[in-house]
């Protein structure tokens, strides 16, 4: 059994608990533990209740547990809401300035901070120090971390952390594991970096949780253009315009914003313009729960857009896959001149995962088919693989005519000639066949757990982590499709060989994955669904799986 423990830190919005959780994650990460951080917050700026669960394990994990070993409560509210999660042998570290008469380690965080002349937000450092002491971590490790994080400004934080450290006692010394620490990164950051590796040049986005942090993150890069237009309709049309000039362009939003882009998604297909769309799902219909999670847009992204057209749809299940699949999507879009959709959700976007840097080598900027400058340029030249050579405006002797109308090879409107109309529709469909053929050599379906079990659970996206973990523990075969369009039928068939019962685990109310699989001829027997905006927690899914499947 892997060694593991979880820490919950909670407080009011604006108190800095998220940042604090990130630092705790780094501290443990540097001790060789594998880390996953779950974020829970509400759609408000100050007040309310925010918390992070930092899960540390000797093995790689990417799912939260309900029960916790340590509760760090910045206020009474946190204590009341989460005390019930604490294991029998668990410990509470609490803010003595706000909570009286509690067992555990009380730290007068604000008092310490004020006495040392720090800003209120710095009180988080006293909890970091106290936790370090409770876990028996050397002061030096905490000092190194804070110096690295805050640089020259570390001084005050160090004093405040040391005061917290000195006020606490070691409760249970954790070991330092002999593993190389891996980077800690959110899925949104991984999406951004994967796109950059594949040659991203322009990112266009209108703010919408949980996709906004891709825009914030990329805005800090000086090598690319980031643009925040007036609405999502401008976002996608401008992206199509930018890609028409040859710039590798990506856009991002959640379901509501993507809904506004759908007409132009169809334009990207018809005009054969390469664009990458990141869709980070949150609970809907409509505004739903802006800061929570769901997998309710699977069928939507697969069918969005009027008319018959093809797209490339990937669904990464953690940060490494987000990096790799976003890069793949960018290259596929440019090679086949079609839209790609990277389907994630709030848990992928905003939770923090370990990422092995070797993933960098799995993504490259692939060359595309460029016009050879011979003869007359035809933007929609009919070719055997359906892919026409690209030229961009500004190219001497090329007239580049892109269009939303059905057209001939030059891009001139073709309404009368039925042969012509048929030919162009088939040319576009042929790209899809070429794409499906090309990617079949890639790993498009992953299998975890007991690979010989006759009972299979199929998961996608953010349920990967929990599926992997429980599949292994309970002896179930766990299957994760990474690509939904073109659907990897052969690989799925292989993955399912010998399976007698199939279940899906999904974070939605209508079993969209099961519906989709049923349409692919894969008969799903039953589904375990959760639709409260929160992801599955290990304990609850374990119970459900035992009841339903074992």
């Amino acid at each position, binding site marked *: 059994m892997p060694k593991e423990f979880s820490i919950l830190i909670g407080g009011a919005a604006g108190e800095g608990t998220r940042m604090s959780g990130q630092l705790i994650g780094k501290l443990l990460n540097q001790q060789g533990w594998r880390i996953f951080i779950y974020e829970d917050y509400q759609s408000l700026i100050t007040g309310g209740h925010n918390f992070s669960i930092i899960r540390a394990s000797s093995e790689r994990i990417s799912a939260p547990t309900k029960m916790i070993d340590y509760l760090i409560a910045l206020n009474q509210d946190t204590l009341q809401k989460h005390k019930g999660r604490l294991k029998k042998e668990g410990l509470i570290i609490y803010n003595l300035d706000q909570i009286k008469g509690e067992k555990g380690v009380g730290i007068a965080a604000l008092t310490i901070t004020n006495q040392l002349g720090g800003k209120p937000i710095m009180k988080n450092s006293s909890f970091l120090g106290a936790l370090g002491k409770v876990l028996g971590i050397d002061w030096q490790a905490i000092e190194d971390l804070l110096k690295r994080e805050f640089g020259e400004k570390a001084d005050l934080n160090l004093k405040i952390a040391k005061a917290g450290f000195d006020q606490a006692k070691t409760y249970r010394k954790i070991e330092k594991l002999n593993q190389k620490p891996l980077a*800690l990164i959110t899925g949104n950051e991984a999406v951004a970096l994967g796109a950059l590796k594949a040659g991203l040049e322009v990112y266009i986005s209108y703010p919408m949780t949980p996709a906004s942090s891709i825009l914030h993150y990329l805005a800090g890069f000086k090598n690319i253009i980031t643009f925040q237009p007036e609405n999502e309709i401008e976002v996608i*049309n401008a992206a*199509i*315009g930018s890609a028409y*000039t040859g710039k590798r362009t990506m856009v991002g939003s959640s379901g509501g914003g993507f809904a506004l882009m759908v007409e132009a998604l169809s334009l990207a297909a018809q005009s054969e313009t390469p664009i990458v769309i990141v869709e980070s799902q949150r609970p809907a219909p409509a505004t739903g729960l802006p800061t929570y999670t769901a997998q309710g847009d699977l069928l939507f992204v697969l069918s969005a857009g009027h008319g018959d057209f093809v797209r490339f749809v990937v669904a990464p299940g953690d940060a490494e896959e987000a990096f790799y699949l976003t890069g793949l999507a960018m290259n596929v879009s440019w090679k086949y001149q079609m839209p790609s959709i990277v389907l994630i959700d709030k848990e992928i976007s905003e939770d923090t995962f370990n990422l092995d*840097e070797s993933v960098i080598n799995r993504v490259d900027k692939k060359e595309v088919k460029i016009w050879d400058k011979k003869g007359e340029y035809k933007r929609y030249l009919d070719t055997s693989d359906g892919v026409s050579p690209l030229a961009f405006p500004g190219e001497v*002797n090329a007239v580049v005519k892109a*269009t939303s109308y059905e057209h001939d090879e030059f891009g001139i409107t073709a309404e009368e000639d039925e042969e012509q109309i048929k030919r162009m529709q088939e040319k576009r469909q042929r790209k899809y066949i070429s794409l499906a053929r090309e990617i079949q050599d890639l790993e498009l379906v992953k299998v975890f757990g007991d690979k010989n079990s006759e009972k299979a659970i199929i998961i996608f996206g953010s349920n990967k982590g929990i599926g992997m973990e429980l599949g292994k523990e309970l002896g179930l075969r766990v299957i994760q499709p990474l690509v939904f369009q073109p659907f990897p039928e052969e690989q799925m068939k292989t993955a399912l060989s010998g399976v007698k019962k199939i279940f899906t685990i999904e974070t939605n109310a209508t079993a969209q994955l099961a519906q989709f699989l049923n349409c692919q001829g894969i008969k799903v027997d039953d589904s375990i669904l959760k639709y409260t905006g929160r992801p599955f927690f290990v304990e609850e899914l374990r119970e459900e799986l035992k009841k339903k499947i074992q």
Partner: protein
Amino acid sequence: MNKNDLDLPTKNTWCPGCGNFGILQAIKNAISILEKKGIKKENFVLTTGIGCHAKIVDYLNINTFYGLHGRALAVAVGIKIGNPNLKLITCSGDGDSYNEGISHLIYAAKRNIDLTILIHNNRNFALTTGQYSATSPKGFKGRSTPMGSLEAAFNPLELMMASGATFVARGYTAKIDHLTNLITQAVEHKGFSFIDILDPCVAWFNTYEDYNKRVYELKDNEVSSKEEATKRTWEWDYNNGDKIPIGVFYKIQKPTFDQEINSELIKIQNIDNKIKEILEKKI
């Protein structure tokens, strides 16, 4: 296709007498003049939305993007950001940019993005068989308003003045030389150039006679004065007014969005090393 000629051997499907013929001619004239002044033909890009105006892409042998209804400008903004060296001309209709896509019009003006938009303003939805548009007069009898529309027209020039356009003009398709000159000036202007073009629709709203009586050319107006320009937009507000001024109303210089957004880009020499450096800090 002949690479150097602006014409294409396509069949023109505008109605005989359509105002769009004059606009097409003026655009060709302007491009020829600008080519002589040194702008290379391959650097012109023309975008359109959907409507009678948009058929123009099939009649012009230059780079074009035939977009969605209302999104002529939305695509053009992306093209200009992607490559600020291109000369963008957007053709759009009143239905296209005053109805469906008005947000893009306002924001392109607000940003002062360097491109030229020509509104083929025939004051109705022509290609969908004559419904009222944003600049149809109140009482317009179209197929969707057989008893007369209930909305007064709005004044697009006044809107553009308020939105931050740095070049605001009105042209008339029947005065091709005047319009050619306006388009040439607009493309040469560094910033957002807006021309509303009076474009009679012979099928649904034939305004030739009316315009011929009332249109006059602006002379000696102070184009750098926002106050004067705004007042002039009120002379005829698409509902009321006697004479209809055409010409340049307003013209000033301001920094352009496409240039500023492209100005401080720094290339990363080795992206692998950059990502490794970022990940190192995340341990």
